[in-house]
């Protein structure tokens, strides 16, 4: 356990030092926004655990402040001036609606929040994804229909129609008459044509 905490300290040293560069503007008394992000427990479509909350970012006003979730899913922004703000949640695999949060000077502590996507008013700042996002298209399983629909399938199908259906469509007697005429004129059939081709060689 001791080493575990030592680790935390180590990482803390790292964390704080970047801020040495920063200049903070003082004397602005702000308010705090506290909220929670809740994920649906078991996902119905996938085999996942609830999204690991260490990879979730909560973003205030398009990047003005960014925070992360605590293990219990809570987050907070401090020193936020009064006004209307926008909170976005970035989590891979989930679609969150941005939330409009009103921080008023008159009644601090009271949350006035609404989802901007569907204008649903939130009574408490608990953010839930609107839907899960499937980033991959599902490959269609093999089916005989897809084989038929492919260009080759269409070619074979067309050929079959020409071979077997076309002669049936033509009236038998008419065909006979036509063949007789053709016989008289000596119009080459495929066979004749091929034979003729051989002869010319």
């Amino acid at each position, binding site marked *: 356990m001791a080493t575990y905490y030592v680790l935390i300290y180590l990482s803390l040293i790292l964390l704080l030092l970047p801020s040495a560069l920063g200049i903070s503007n003082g004397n602005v008394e702000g308010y705090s926004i506290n909220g929670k992000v809740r994920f649906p427990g078991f996902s119905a479509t996938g085999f996942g655990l609830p999204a690991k909350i260490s990879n979730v970012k909560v*973003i205030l006003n398009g990047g003005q402040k960014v925070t992360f979730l605590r293990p219990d899913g809570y987050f907070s922004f401090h020193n936020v001036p009064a006004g209307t703000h926008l909170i976005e949640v970035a989590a891979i695999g989930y679609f969150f609606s941005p939330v409009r949060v009103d921080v008023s000077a008159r009644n601090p502590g009271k949350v006035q929040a609404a989802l901007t996507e569907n204008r649903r008013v939130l009574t408490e700042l608990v953010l839930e994804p609107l839907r899960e996002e499937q980033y991959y298209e599902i490959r269609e399983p093999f089916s005989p229909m897809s084989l038929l629909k492919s260009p080759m399938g269409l070619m074979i199908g067309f050929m079959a129609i020409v*071979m077997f259906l076309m002669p049936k469509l033509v009236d038998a007697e008419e065909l006979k008459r036509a063949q007789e005429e053709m016989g008289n004129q000596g119009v080459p059939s495929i066979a004749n044509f091929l034979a003729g081709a051989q002869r010319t060689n």
Partner: protein
Amino acid sequence: MGCRCSSSYLEGPVQNTSLQNEGRRALMGCLLAAAAGIFFCEAATAVSTSRRAVHYVAKWKGITFMTSRQGLGVGGGTPYGFDVGDSERGTVLKGLDLGVEGMRVGGQRLLIVPPELAYGNKGVQEIPPNATIELDVELLAIKQNPFGHQQYIGKVKHAVFHTQKAARKRVVVSTEENVVASLDLRHGEICGYCHIFADVITLSSGGSVLRAWNLPDGQMVWESTLLGSKASKPLLLIPTNLKVNRDNVLFVYGNGFIHAVATIDGEVIWKKELASEGVDVQQLIYPDGSDTLYAVGLLGLSQFDVYQLDVKSGELLRHYNMLFPAGFSGDLSFVSDDTAVAMDSTGTALVAMHFQDGQISFHQTDVSQLIQDFSGGAVILPSKIAGSFILKLDSSVVFIKVRNDGKLEVVGRLGHADAVSDALSLSDGQQAFSLIQHGDGKIILTVKLSNDWTSNVIEETTQMDHQRGLVHKVFINSYVRTDRSNGFRALIVMEDHSLLLLQQGEIVWTREDGLASIMDVKASELPVEKDGVSVAKVEHNLFEWLKGHLLKLKGTLMIATPDDVAAIQKMRLQSSEKSKMTRDRNGFRKLLIVLTRAGKLFALHTGDGRIVWSLLLNTLRKSETCENPRGISLHQWQDPHHHALDENPSVLVVGRCGHTSDSAGVLSIVDTYTGEERNHMGSVHSIAHIIPLPFSDSMEQRLHLLVDANGHAHLYPRSAEALGIFQRELGNIYWYSAETDKNILRGHGVRKNCVLEVSDEFCFDTRDLWSIVFPSESEKIAATATRSLNEVVHTQAKVTADQEVMYKFISKNLLFLATVAPKAVGPIGSVTPDESSLVVYVIDTVTGRILHRMTHHGSQGPVQAVFSENWVVYHYFNLRAHRYEMSVIEIYDQARADNKEILKLVLGTHNLTSPITAYSRPEVFTKSQSYFFTHSVKTMAVTSTAKGITSKQVLLGTIGDQVLALDKRFLDPRRTINPTPAEKEEGIIPLTDSLPIIPQSYATHALKVEGLRGIATVPSKLESTTLVFAYGVDLFFTHLAPSRTYDSLTEDFSYALLLLTIVALVAAIFVTWVWSEKKDLQEKWR
């Protein structure tokens, strides 16, 4: 590419021996992976960084609780897809992720997953805690991403080793890109990965945010905001064993307050204001085992202050100070719990300060007393060595010991040192530190003990690549060797921001973390394939070729070890078409030339993302003439495609020596095939604008005009031929400049040669042609956008459903400009809708005419915009609806629309190419429409194809670091709520108030491009396909086909089926032939 711990998780105990036994439902000999606790059945082949699709049946005690096989479809149910390494991100069960490692497509495995790799000790829904579950998995498909996703971290600022008592030795680093990462010491791979924004810490209205993270997975444990009123340098002190109310405590000084924070939950135990008197606290000191905390600082630059506080309550016990009339310069350097050292204000004397029990004493020593040949210019190096400090002189470093009476004593001197590490406490109570010295093409690492300055514990020489530059930082860590002596490993940060681990004189691993800070990207073609062309060292030598074939033979003979299998896989990938160093027919293989902030150029191969060459530009290195060099941009310098084909293409790198636009500029020209610098010019005139001209000389060198801060334009290349071309076109060259601080947009032209002391025929005077002054009380320039120079437009007209022809107004000289009300420049929430407005302009940059102006009331920035063909798309925030909005403006040519000569157009006699001059007053009409968009956008780009026929997609880099490809059809101003059937036929989508976000249209899929900053698109030769490169801290590359791949066959096109069909058709012909022959014969017999 696979740089997460999950892939190396299985190393060691897992040995796959039954390699070739594959087949559905064929459960071969089960292998026991003792450490991971997974039972492997069946084996072999699946590379990391790929996406897998599986069918699974999950069982607990024989009861199926979840399966993908249930549902519609022939195969039953929807297969489950995930990326390798998803378990690190927590989106998939670890047991599943690890369990499919090494599986082949079609293979099947029964995984017995222990609870720690499944649902853990909490259980989920019907699964009880600590349940061992069974997974029956069938691997359906593996999909590889060609270049994929590369993770970098940036230049390391601090590093802390974590090697004791840890199973996996790690180093935790924080970087200039605000990343905190934990690296595996053995391979340098990223284990935990999280992104910290410095501005969160600093911008939070005078408070510092203190956060604690859990190491293995980067989970934030607690967060604590420390409020205060005054800005100051933050300090942190972590006593090793101090408990207040049974909690471990750490002390933080920031914003004028000192806070005691409980380490377990981040709760503030007490806080005390110290800054009321204006003291700049520089150090917190807690002597071990006492009850007093010391806060030491300076007031002004001459008063030394010490506060003593009670550690338990924060009560101020004592405050005493002493004036040092001569004044200090620089910060205090602490050598022990009660002694500090500083330079005096003249920089010639050292002052040792001793403070104890309310007494302060100063002891001043002239540097010249200590060092005979001292000639000014000494700096105290921060080193944290007990009882001593290091003084850096011009040509040497001196180790100085501080005695108890405040006297200084020189104990050692060294020629020069380029980097010194902090002191490291060893187990036997000694302190060690290391020095790095540069030699000729090598670096020398020496480790010394603090009580013995003359001898070295270790001196190691390592060969170093010249392209890495100097050593900037060094961090050391010790380990105990088998003979119980101390060994040292050193983590060094180089000038090009790369990170190396040295151990026993060898480089264990390197990371090219300079790639985390890309400034600019240009794509370059690869050489044409012909014999004898070899670029860099990609061709294998004979030995390697033989070794490769031997490995393959081993593979077929089933005697390959898992390592061999991995090697074979890698080789196959290498020898496959996509990583070749020549052009391919589709134009997918290219080199991406990237310029990093460290001033290094890299060439990345788009096939597999490897670095082909890298070059640290000397012009962009810090030198006496160039104090703060900084690369600005890359330009295509020479791009041979017609003649001069035997010339290699090259890029122009433009940089500056300082931060302002009037500092001297530097130029280099780099060959993109070999990575050699062909030419460089240091410290030329200043560079304010770079204007690539649409002309090139006989060597296919592009003409560039570089405008300096004094308004002179300089022509490059400096050749007589270029000058001739330029002088011919002198009257046709225009450009604009947007002066954001003055709120002016100016148009410029070239006049004549400039008059200088030294005559320079390549220098020209410029003249102002026009200017637009925006009213500063109501408007402030927020964003500009222009068309990309090499964009190709295929169709100039658009035929609508009702047979109308609309002519696109296409001009290279269009500028989109957005202004916001000065009040609304701040973040969202700082302004009310009534106070804010956004005005957008479309301006012709030759004449300065405003073609279109539109006001969005109640809107504010940040504005992101992209200009392509005849349309602009821009993203902003609508305060009234409190949602982000995107608008489109399309510009059409009125003059040509009146000219209804469609017949002529059809017959091809319509002269669309007749010269159009920008001076003729263009009559344009615009169409525009706005839509809501859910996310914030960090950057925007548009797809570009070879001939501009394919429809466009707008690429949006969202705040969640993903890249969304949005079809331009959604941003068509002609969308109506109820389109007529004719319009529907034309492809107009019914109007909706917000733009749809379809998860499948994310170009990055389930990946994140951490810290996304820019997106570059490059056309391929295949008209349907665009190459997309997104960069931030991570890099991401992919192919996009906005209208699907209509000009090539899909990946799963079956040639076998085609062959079969042809055979069947031929057979059918013969059958019919035979039949007709027979029939003919029968006819004749009749």
